[in-house]
């Protein structure tokens, strides 16, 4: 079964500093990778995804993530964070799974706390 590890449960950072949120998954032949964000008191929403093609994917608000097959990682980065980026970030991985179900498996989440 697929497993997703988000090593950092909490990442505090100052505004305008760079940040990296780490995500590793157990190996699989073919995977689809997602980052979801949950702002305070809101539902989860997709931040970015990797399905195929370029291993570097970007979101509209400056986040990017790189699919590294050899290291089975999909780390999320932003060169300069804002206060408004404070949220819970979830990495999710979808593979063929049992019976070809492609049900996404989620990590435990990383709480990004941006300080002024």
């Amino acid at each position, binding site marked *: 079964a697929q497993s997703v590890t988000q090593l950092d*449960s909490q990442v505090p950072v100052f505004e305008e500093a760079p940040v990296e949120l780490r995500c590793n998954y157990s190996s699989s032949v073919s995977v*689809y990778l*997602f980052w*979801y964000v949950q702002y305070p008191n*809101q*539902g*989860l*929403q*997709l931040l970015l*995804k990797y*399905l195929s093609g370029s291993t570097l994917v970007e979101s509209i608000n400056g986040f990017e993530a790189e699919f590294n097959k050899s290291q089975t990682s999909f780390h999320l980065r932003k060169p300069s964070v804002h206060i408004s980026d404070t949220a819970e970030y*979830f990495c999710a991985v*979808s593979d063929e799974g*049992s*019976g070809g*179900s*492609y*049900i*996404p*498996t*989620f*990590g*435990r*989440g990383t709480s990004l706390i941006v300080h002024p």
Partner: protein
Amino acid sequence: GAGVSQSPSNKVTEKGKDVELRCDPISGHTALYWYRQSLGQGLEFLIYFQGNSAPDKSGLPSDRFSAERTGGSVSTLTIQRTQQEDSAVYLCASSLALLGYEQYFGPGTRLTVT
């Protein structure tokens, strides 16, 4: 267009009572998922539907949990004889299909068992 909706938004119930949680997915989405989110525990997958069919129910925590989906649309998650450990936020999500498609999440139902 309308997103995924869930009702009720909050539910407080006494231990031993049954509860029903409802999910209205985005129109046209064939796949529907139920997750449970507990503090510090991330998202726990419960069950998914492809159309009205739930091929794998192994994620349900116990036989007190059941779910159904009718008309390829609305889904209900039923918890019988609730226990305090059932307290959590129950999330529903839908997607166009299973294979690599983005999931759209509802706002969740916060269940508190007293």
